Each structure stands twice: as C-alpha cells, then as structure tokens.
C-alpha cells in the first residue's frame, strides 16, 4: 500500500472545498501523465477501476472458465487553487475500448486538453471527436517532442479539421509554464461560454 500523507494536527476544515475537474486526453505515449505531473502539487496518483465481463462491451470471452477482470488505470493530479477550491486533472484511459469510462469522467468536467503528438496525429482523432460531439470545450495542445518535426498551428488545425473556435497551442508537457497556458485556455473557453449565455 502506498503511504498516504497524514495531516494530523491541522485544524479540521469546516467545509469541503469546491472540487472541479479537467480531463487530459490523447493517444498512448502523448505525454498525458507528464502534463499532469508538470502542474500537480502531488506526484500523479493512479486510480484503478476493475471491469468485469458485464462492464466490457467489446471483448467477448467465451466460456465462464475464462472470466477475467480487467484493470483500467487513470492517472490524476491535484492543484489547490485556494483553500476552498481544488482542481483535479484526470488523464483519460488511452485505449479506445474504454470509451464508456470517459462518460463518467466527462460528467461535470470544466473542459479538456487533447494532447497531440504530431508523429501520430491520428491517435487523437477519437478524443477530438468525443469532445466535439458532447460540446465539451477543449484545447488542442501539440506536445513538442524533442526531435519531432514542428508543424505550423494551421497545419495541425487542418489535419484534424478543427472548428475555428478550438484553440491550438504548441506546448511542452514537461514545462509548468507551458502547461499552465494550456489549462488557462481551456477554462477561458468555459468562461466565454457562460458570458455569452448571460449576455
């Protein structure tokens, strides 16, 4: 068991903080956990969800003797913005067959980051599609890997056929400042959405 930080001696908080979440999606190896780790105040933690046959829409295993459980891991980090305001960042499970878990993650999310690797841009098609269909604001962040060819923002936008309103940001998922900019752009979209509704 991993040790938990114990905060004995702290005064007991009267109220629980407001908790918000952002999702970080992208293909396997795009740098999701690195991005979470760059801004999280805790080392990214891992939660696991056990899936049994009933919860698995794709893999058909015939015969009860072959019954298995599958574990899906989700890495997440935490940013305490104020004593009473906490933002969680969840890396979504990479494999396509766990899409149904995304619905739970996406419920109530402020928005999402879709992290793209220009060497494997097709890996993020599914995530872009998912957030577009559900009207969840997202920012396309191109993780600029060392040695990967740089493409102009417009080329990435065209290749993914993104809406003009979707911000495309070149970032370095290892750099806190860079990641902050990406996260701010996600929340700003939600903010603009609200302002529009109000006006």
């Amino acid at each position: 068991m991993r040790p938990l930080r114990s905060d004995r001696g702290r005064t007991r908080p009267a109220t629980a903080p407001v908790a918000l979440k952002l999702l970080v999606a992208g293909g396997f190896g795009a740098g999701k956990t690195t991005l979470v780790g760059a801004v999280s105040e805790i080392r990214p933690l891992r939660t696991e969800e056990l899936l049994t046959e009933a919860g698995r829409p794709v893999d058909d295993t015939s015969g009860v003797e072959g019954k298995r459980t599958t574990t899906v891991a989700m890495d997440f980090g935490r940013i305490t913005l104020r004593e009473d305001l906490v933002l969680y960042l969840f890396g979504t499970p990479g494999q396509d067959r766990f899409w149904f878990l995304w619905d739970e993650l996406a419920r109530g999310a402020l928005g999402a980051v879709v992290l793209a690797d220009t060497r494997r841009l097709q890996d993020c098609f599914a995530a872009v599609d998912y957030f577009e269909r559900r009207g969840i604001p997202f920012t396309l962040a191109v993780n600029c890997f060392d040695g990967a060819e740089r493409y102009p923002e417009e080329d990435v936008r065209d290749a993914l056929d993104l809406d003009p309103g979707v911000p495309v940001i070149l970032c370095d998922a290892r750099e806190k400042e860079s990641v902050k900019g990406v996260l701010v752009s996600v929340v700003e979209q939600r903010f603009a959405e609200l302002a529009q509704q109000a006006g």
Partner: protein
Amino acid sequence: MTAGLTGDGSGDGDVRWYDDAAGPVVRPYAMTRGRTRSADGAGLDLIAVVVAEDPAEHPGAAHALADQTLSPEHLDIAELTRDMPRSVAELAAGLDLPVGVVRVLVGDLLDAGLVRVTRPVPPAELPDESILREVIHGLRAL
C-alpha cells in the same frame, strides 16, 4: 491485472508469480462482501469530496463504530477523511483500492452517518463566472 489469469496448462507453466505479480491475496470485492454497488455510494463522482462526521454530534455514528460491522478499510477511510477532506479518487489511490470498491465503502459510511459527501457541481449547472475567474487567476499564479 494478472490475478484473474489462469495459468493451467496454457503453455506457460514455467511462469511463476510472486508477491505483487501474483495479484492481490484478497479479491477486492471481498472487502465489500461481494457488493459492487451500494444505494448511497453508487453515483459518487471521482471528485466527490468525503469528510468525516464528528461522532459526538452523530450518535448513530458512535453506534456503528461500536458494533464492529465495519471493515479495516472502512475505518481507514473514516480516519483519513478526519484529517482532511479527500476525494473518492484520492482515497482509491491512497488505499490502493479500485474506485468501485471505495464507492461501496463510502456508501456504507454514509449510511452509518460516519461521513458526509460534498458532491461536485452538477453538470447542468457549471460553476458560475466568479469561480471560473478564480480558477483562471489561480492557474496563472501557480
């Protein structure tokens, strides 16, 4: 996870699993006495925040503690959330339990009046402008 794999006569008979590689000794849902959902815990979001109730103010809670129907994992959760509020995701990661198991256990604790849960803002009513402004400022100031 490898725990559910059967290693019988499938050609890899030489493979031995030790310690962590062998998977958990106790199957996770044994801690919930086989229940995969509970009335109160089923819909708990990953970021629902769990806070321990003060047993002094909740006589029912003291009773639940006394009758010893709670598992060590229940008590772990009660203890951790007494120190500070923690999200369902943090409890699962910290106790190394699947999220589904933590939901059931938190549901039991809710039933017993040992904890309360602050549910996140419902999706239909996203946080208001002032909260979003705080989030943007807070992120910039990191």
